[in-house]
């Protein structure tokens, strides 16, 4: 694992996290305005674009590393997404959700260390 590969993993992860937040925002806007409003279309387009970036970077990485080693890095997104959902989307968290997200993340880190 060199620094360049690590950087690609980080970029892939970040674009995935931001994409999820954009998509959630997009789907929330459909409740009030339906699917034919410019806000929904631009948010979904941005979300899809970021997920595509993340997808191709992952595909390139898969050619070099085991799937069971690489895949868990995406799992770090759990803690990021849960945190960002609270911070940006104002979703209410409880202790259980935080503990669950933390355990999933620790588990995933263990998997990638081994």
């Amino acid at each position, binding site marked *: 694992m060199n620094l360049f590969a690590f950087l*690609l993993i980080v970029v892939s992860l970040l674009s995935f996290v931001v994409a*999820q*937040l954009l*998509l*959630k925002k*997009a*789907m*929330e806007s*459909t*409740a009030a305005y339906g699917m034919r409003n410019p806000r929904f279309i631009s948010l*979904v387009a941005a979300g*899809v674009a970021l*997920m595509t970036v993340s*997808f*191709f*970077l*992952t*595909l*390139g*990485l*898969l*050619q*070099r590393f*085991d*799937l*069971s080693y690489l*895949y*868990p890095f995406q*799992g770090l*997104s*759990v803690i990021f*997404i*849960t945190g960002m*959902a*609270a911070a940006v*989307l104002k*979703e209410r*968290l*409880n202790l*259980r*959700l935080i*503990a*669950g*997200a*933390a*355990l*999933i*993340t*620790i*588990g*995933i*880190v*263990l*998997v*990638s*260390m*081994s």
Partner: protein
Amino acid sequence: MQNRPRGFGNPWLQLALSVVCVFVSELLLKRGATDVADPQSALSWTGINGLASPLVWWAILLIVASFISWLYVLRYIPLSVAFPLSRVVDILVPVGCWLLLGEWISPLRWCGIALVVIGVALVARPVAQMEERL
């Protein structure tokens, strides 16, 4: 969540469908990507040469399907609940790699997978109770 649709439109069913599609697509991607791997070429860091494999195209189809289900899920379920639950794939994928791709999983890696199981169960239990009351 009170007026959510039932049957095929049930967001929890769609969440499960989305997870299964992601799981199968990951295995297909790994198979497809290694089939056509060309680590010598600089272009291969972009992953674009993976498109030469038909398996990768099947995987893309499944990803699109999972994406549509996922968008539907986001309409009804908070991201901080739906996303951790969707990480059931982090259990399914390594177990699938072990069973189907013949990858070796160390004891420490199994411990990590077990923690993910507990974490997902923690997030899922209040949801199950909430559903019973509805």
